[in-house]
């Protein structure tokens, strides 16, 4: 009888811990990490841009709206480099400039510099919406904001820069 009691207690304890683990997965800390992750960026193409450019709606997170806007700009450039931009609004899908899925880790030092505050990535943002995002493009969250901006990025110039820096391969490399 004692053995059965002990066994039931053991099972109950392990179930409680498993539940705690599942809750931990969605803790505030984890959520924050998720928002700050360099893989987490939402982009939507707004149509076919002028020669060599892409027009996007992109989201960013930040404690203040200004921080979220800066992150959104960074996300727009990061999406063009690592993730690609899904098609929509009459525009075909845009592939990521870097074909290697682990490129961000392979060239970690380069990208740390590239995406540093006031870094080179700013050079490839031609235009963004002026003023503070409002309405559906500005969501108040528990600790900060999630905002969307409309931006035009210089896709071809960005690709050429990465090719010149030896990060991306030219189409005619090797020939």
């Amino acid at each position: 009888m004692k053995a059965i009691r002990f066994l039931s207690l053991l099972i109950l304890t392990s179930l409680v811990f498993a539940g705690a683990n599942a809750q931990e997965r969605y803790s505030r800390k984890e959520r924050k990490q998720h928002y700050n992750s360099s893989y987490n960026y939402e982009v939507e193409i707004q149509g076919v841009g002028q020669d060599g450019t892409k027009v996007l709606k992109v989201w960013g997170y930040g404690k203040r709206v200004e921080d979220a806007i800066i992150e959104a700009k960074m996300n727009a450039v990061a999406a063009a480099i690592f993730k690609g931009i899904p098609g929509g609004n009459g525009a075909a899908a845009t592939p990521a400039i870097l074909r290697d899925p682990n490129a961000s880790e392979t060239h970690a030092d380069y990208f740390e510099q590239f995406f540093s505050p006031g870094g080179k990535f700013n050079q490839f943002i031609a235009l963004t919406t002026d003023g503070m995002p409002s309405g559906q493009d500005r969501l108040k969250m528990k600790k900060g904001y999630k905002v969307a901006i409309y931006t035009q990025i210089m896709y071809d110039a960005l690709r050429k820069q990465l090719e010149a820096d030896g990060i991306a391969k030219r189409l005619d490399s090797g020939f």
Partner: protein
Amino acid sequence: MKRVLLISLFAFISISIFGQAKKPTIMVVPSDQYCISKGYKMEFENMGATQTLPDYKAAMQKDPDLRLVITKMGNIMAERGFPLKDLEMEMKNLEKEAAEMSMMTSSSSGSDMAESPIDMLKRTAKADIIMDLSFEIKRNGPEKYITFNLRGLDAYTSKQIAGAAGQGAPSMSAGADLLLEEAVLSHMDGFNNLLQGHFEDMFAKGREVKVMVRVWNNWGETLETEFDDKELTEIIDDWFFDNTVEGRFSVSDATENFMRLEQVRIPMMRVDDRGRERAVDTRSFVNDLRKYLKSTYEIDSKVYLRGLGEAWLILGEK
């Protein structure tokens, strides 16, 4: 030891700097469907059946939309390091070349230039990669939109190596020119990304080509004849296994008179007799097989080139 190391390092650096693989030529060609549906076609009676062929010259002369699309694509490809061969210019050059050839004679003896029927047949516009293009301006009430279809075809393996197709956003105000420009801008990044994938694959696994081995009728031997207790087909099979990248090739068909080898992955570069790093094309690759058969089994043969990616080796004599 130091000297050996230095020499190896120098050789490696010179290979990296000077070694350049053969660059494929690319040409935009309107698809048969586009030409025929727009009326740019030629009709022939062939054994009682009507044959319809695209008339590229008429298409290039009469279709401003097509010219616009080709120019836009040409700009993008040139910017990416692949200036396109122009179909219209190529056809004009071929006409001029034919006219000049027919008029040219030697100044001392008055002899004209040698040209076999095969040489004449070979005088056609060709490229290693064909960008097969079709598009249509469609209407939905007051709105116009473009459907666009671009396929990158390897001229030798007949494989589609890249593609982009889709429909543009409808517009009431934009003209057809603007919509066409949008369609090209929208699809070319995806197309070039696939093309880059093809080139990367080519550098990793070798260039994919086609080789045909045939025999002259008067040779007196066949591919089933035995040399040193081995059938010739077996000897050729072994040679391909030894000389292709990772032994990649497949014999898709074979009889006593021919062997068709497909998906043959030839190396992009090799070191020649004088120790120089040189690009490999199908001709030089098959030429090595010709030399091997001559030196080892005393078999004469002729290499017939069909382009950067296809060659025939005809056994028996030159």
